[in-house]
């Protein structure tokens, strides 16, 4: 009804930041701390939220989501921790190799797809590797509000246990660390069997760990609504393929190391997105014509929608075959 109808802009609102610190945590993980150039406060956020960091890497724009690990109550800085992935698409390598203190960058307002359930009487966290990051913020938030929490954190080794010493030092009774190389394993079934009603479980880590916790919880009778997970779905590389965008009347080539969404953006087409990790549904696109197979990698569409071939989530999914025409 407004005189100048406002079209929604793709992605969340942006914030200009300055890199305040780049802190190596261990051989694989580096923490990046951001401040605002005018010294202004950051927006408050709810623990579990992530921000999408914009990177300009030799002419290619990358947008990668990272969990905010800083204390939501501290509005003077935002912090993320990035695990270097030498086999990945280059986002983490870019962060590790090119980002220096003093650099100006653009990140987004926080977006939360992995919130705490504030009705819970108790929160039990299962973290694997870099999956510890959202829990750092959650623990800070719950400590502020006298919440009841417990952490079980599996690391490959003491050397690679990001923040493990800090957590164990501050919360000796609540933070439990397990080192793979010392054969220490989370006694999952025992832990899941004795929790009081009103407990919620949260797991963040590798795909396998998430599947393990969800499967055991279901087998022990836990309702799905009490088990929450976040997987950092980086778009996987794959064989290049061609796509026709019928609305824009363009044919684009999706390269091996870019996602379909990135290729669409590279072609100058404004496609909606939010999380860039296959979880939020915002980039859902209609398939107009299909001769081949869509490789679905998202957590948004249901089985029927995956099978129908009528929808695709371009942020993470790919295509193999002759013809793919999208409604963009």
């Amino acid at each position, binding site marked *: 009804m407004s005189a100048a109808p406002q079209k929604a802009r793709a992605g969340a609102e942006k914030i200009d930041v300055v890199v305040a610190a780049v802190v190596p945590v261990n051989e694989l993980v580096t923490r990046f701390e951001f401040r605002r150039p005018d010294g202004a406060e950051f927006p408050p956020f709810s623990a579990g939220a992530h921000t999408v960091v914009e990177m300009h890497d030799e002419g290619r724009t990358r947008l990668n989501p990272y969990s905010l690990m800083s204390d939501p109550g501290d509005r003077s800085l935002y912090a993320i921790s990035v695990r270097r992935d030498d086999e990945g698409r280059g986002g983490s390598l870019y962060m590790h190799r090119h980002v220096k203190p003093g650099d100006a960058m653009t990140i987004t307002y926080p977006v939360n797809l992995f919130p705490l359930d504030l009705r819970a009487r108790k929160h039990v966290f299962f973290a694997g590797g870099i999956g510890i990051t959202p829990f750092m913020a959650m623990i800070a938030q719950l400590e502020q509000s006298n919440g009841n929490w417990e952490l079980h954190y599996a690391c490959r080794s003491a050397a690679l246990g990001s923040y493990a010493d800090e957590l164990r030092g501050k919360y000796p009774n609540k933070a439990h660390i397990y080192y793979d190389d010392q054969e220490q394993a989370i006694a999952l079934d025992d832990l899941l*069997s004795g929790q009081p*009603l*009103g407990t919620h479980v949260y797991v963040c880590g590798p795909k396998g760990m998430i599947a393990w916790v969800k499967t055991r919880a*279901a087998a022990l*009778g836990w*309702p799905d*609504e009490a088990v929450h997970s976040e997987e950092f779905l980086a778009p996987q590389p794959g064989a290049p393929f061609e796509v026709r965008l019928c609305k824009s009347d363009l044919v684009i080539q999706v390269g091996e190391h870019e996602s379909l969404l990135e290729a669409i953006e590279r072609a100058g087409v404004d496609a909606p997105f939010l999380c860039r990790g296959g979880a939020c549904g915002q980039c859902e696109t209609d398939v107009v014509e299909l001769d081949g197979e869509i490789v679905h990698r998202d957590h948004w569409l249901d089985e029927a929608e995956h099978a129908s071939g009528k929808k695709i989530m371009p942020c993470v999914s790919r295509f193999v075959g002759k013809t793919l025409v999208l409604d963009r």
Partner: protein
Amino acid sequence: MSKFQFPESITSRPVYGTLAPRPGKAHLMIADAEGAEALLDLAAQDAGLMAKAHILYIPKGTGETYVEKLRAAGPAQLYIGPSYAASVQRLRRVLSDAHMGLQVYLAGTEGLMGQAMNEAVSAGIPHSAIQTEHRGSTARRMQCVHCKGITEDVTTDPFVCSHCGLNLFVRDHYSRRLAAFQGVCIDAEDPGEIPPAKELYS
């Protein structure tokens, strides 16, 4: 078989299912009157389940009809209560010590299922994880939106609020929190014009 086929209705109107065995170490079953039939059907599906089950049963008008059959199903604990109200303290005690993974099965009248569900939800089990199966009476718990009083066992539309005396029509709009349907004054715009009461679902 006392299972009623509820007509299709609005989204807030609860829809009941059929009890099915679920994985878990502990099982809590609460039923009234003909709801016992649903528990017996469940036992027939999985006899081993009953050995881990705690049953709270309120026979109401059915008297002794189902009591022995329930006992014969071999539950770990069986409580026969004179009324739902009398059984609430016991229910709360059981829930206070329960662990996540407890399976809850409710069967019988809407009023019993709604109230028992509230106890389980307050204790920390998500409502969608609680199984329900309707059996027996289709009488409703109705909340008068004007005085907030709940009138039990309503079978006609309209009906008289047992607290404030207003004539209320029966809505399908249902509140899980109150475990009751909504009753609204039927003659607000035409005072005194009250249509003759009809049986619900007739």
